């Protein structure tokens, strides 16, 4: 099948440009056809193929190189290494109001934008009504763009693109600006466009939008591809990474409290897997086993807490609430086992915390934590699936 765009081993280094010496040196190197190789690297060895009908989201933390990648795809930037081949009519909406000139009216800017996209004045005239209807900003169209709200600017930009119907549409975080009704309108348009065989490449921080519009996702971190593939798999891993990052920051401020007598000797989650982090599907069964040090005759209380990877509590239950006693393994060792059947947790990253407590269930002795992942394709929101039926 024909490829609309292909990136092969693409890398980008931004040259140093602060000193006139650097600029002159770069000028000389360019004229001599030499490469400029000192600078800051933003992209490294990116490979990407875009097929017709594809819908791909590019996700990643701020500064990961997403926008640079889009700029290279649209031809705004040339890569330092690697090759870019684009074989399609491309319309790109990079940043708010890109390509608009403040002093000119909305109408003038529509003309410029259209000519940038290769529309002749005659073709534009035929589509003007459609554009104005989509932008829906009324008489403001005759005002200079500098007096527009950011939402109006996005409306205008998107309206021109809808009239062009490109083979490949590239958007960079632009839907975040419009109001709810305009966002809905844009998403409706994109869905129709995709249904008609259009191809979409978007950058967004809204995983909801990403999952709604895209089939695949590409996660970029520090200029390299960290993960790519099915949109649900990649976005979940990405969200989990974020949650773990914020949890790590949280944990730094929390003191370890393993000084009590009833400390956790071992803590395991079943079924065990070869993965570093055990993976479950929704509806699976999760078992956990804890062995506790027991210095005297008294039996410690066990509290299990289920938290989201960022530390948000989901569910907690203790052995004394359920009147459960541990199994005595030896003189100073006892064991608790718990089984969560038919897991209702939604896909994401979680941790199971084992808290050992004194026999009265009043004082916390020790805490250990094991992460696990629930995988699956679900766009439900929240942490758990509550049993529900849709009624007439």
């Amino acid at each position, binding site marked *: 099948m024909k490829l609309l765009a292909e990136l092969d081993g693409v890398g980008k280094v*931004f*040259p140093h*440009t602060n000193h*006139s010496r650097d*600029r*002159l040196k*770069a*000028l000389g190197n*360019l*004229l001599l*056809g030499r490469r*400029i190789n000192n600078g800051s690297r933003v992209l490294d060895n990116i490979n990407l193929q875009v097929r017709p009908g594809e819908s791909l989201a590019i996700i990643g933390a701020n500064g990961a190189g997403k926008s640079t990648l889009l*700029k290279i795809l*649209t*031809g*705004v*930037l*040339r890569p330092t290494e690697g090759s870019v081949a684009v074989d399609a009519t*491309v319309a*790109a909406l*990079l*940043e708010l109001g*890109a*390509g608009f*000139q403040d*002093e*000119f009216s909305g109408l*003038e800017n529509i*003309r*410029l934008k259209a*000519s*940038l996209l*290769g*529309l*002749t*004045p005659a073709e534009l005239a035929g589509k003007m009504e459609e554009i104005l209807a989509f932008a829906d900003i009324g008489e403001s169209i005759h005002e200079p763009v500098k007096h527009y709200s950011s939402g109006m600017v996005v409306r205008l930009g998107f309206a021109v693109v809808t009239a062009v119907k490109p083979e490949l549409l590239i958007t960079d975080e632009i839907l975040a600006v419009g109001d709810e009704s305009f966002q809905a309108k844009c998403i409706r348009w994109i869905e129709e466009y995709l249904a008609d065989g259009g191809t979409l490449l978007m950058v967004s921080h809204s995983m909801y939008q990403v999952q709604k519009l895209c089939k695949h996702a590409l996660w970029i971190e520090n200029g390299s591809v960290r993960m790519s593939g099915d949109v649900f798999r990649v976005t979940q891993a990405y969200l989990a990474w974020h949650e773990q990052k914020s949890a790590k920051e949280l944990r730094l401020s929390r003191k370890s409290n393993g000084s009590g007598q009833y400390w956790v000797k071992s803590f395991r989650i079943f079924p065990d897997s070869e993965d570093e982090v055990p993976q479950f599907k929704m509806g699976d069964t999760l078992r956990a086993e804890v062995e506790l040090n027991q210095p005297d005759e008294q039996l410690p209380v066990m509290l299990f807490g289920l938290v989201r990877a960022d530390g948000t509590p989901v569910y907690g239950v203790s052995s004394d609430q359920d009147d459960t006693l541990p199994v005595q393994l030896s003189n100073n060792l006892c064991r608790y086992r718990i089984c969560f059947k038919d897991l209702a947790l939604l896909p994401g990253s979680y941790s199971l915390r084992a808290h050992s407590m004194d026999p009265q269930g009043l004082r916390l002795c020790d805490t250990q934590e094991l992460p696990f992942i629930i995988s699956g394709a679900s766009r439900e929101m929240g942490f758990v699936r509550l049993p529900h039926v849709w009624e007439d």
Partner: protein
Amino acid sequence: MHKNIILVKELVRREIRSRYLDSLSGLAWLVIQPLMLLLIYGFVFVIIFKAKVPEADTTGFLPYLAVAFWPWTAFSDAVLRSVNSVTTNSGLIDKVSVSSEVFPIAMITATFIMHMVGYLAILLVITLFGIPVNWLGIFPAFVVLGFLFMLALALGLLVSSLNVFIRDLEHVVPPFMMLWFFGTPILYSISLIPPEYQHWMRLNPMTGIVNSLRDFLLWGEYSVSPALLLTGLAIILLLLFSLWFFRRLSPRFEDFF
């Protein structure tokens, strides 16, 4: 290519619109502004310095000056305005995939179109004052003006791309153009220059251009000198070099804005 032509047309249209036609008296200014400059030069040189150009006996000094002054203004204005034409559009070049050369090309084209309208108007004014303008000479003059346009394009492409890397250029070019103006026989004739310096002046491509414009439009002489042909050839070569130069640098403009 097709896309770039559409874009240049649109840029030229809006450049002309924004510069003149938005203000009510726009078109009038196009004629009035250089006319006033011409009158100032006329006053200083004819009344105060009592400048005499031997060739201009039949026509008077002002028409002699005007025929060369307008094209020079178009050329100089075009080159000066093109210096910033890439950097001022960095917002666009940085966000939209576009061949950057459309910006200097559109700027120079728009400037030439506007000044050529003024040129025609001033030729009419000269005729109205009873000095015969050789209107048939318009056609060969058009060819020479075409070369002038190409020279402006060549220099415009050079300075606009260099200005991305060397920002001081916008301060260097204006005095250089001033020097060039006085080094070209616009206010004077080449016959007033001591003979030993005359061949240096002929190295200046503008010399051949303004002299032939006077030949065509004022004296009705259509002989084409080999020097003029050589100038034309040099301009074409320079333009080709400038295009190469510009395209060598333009893929990296974004990195240096």
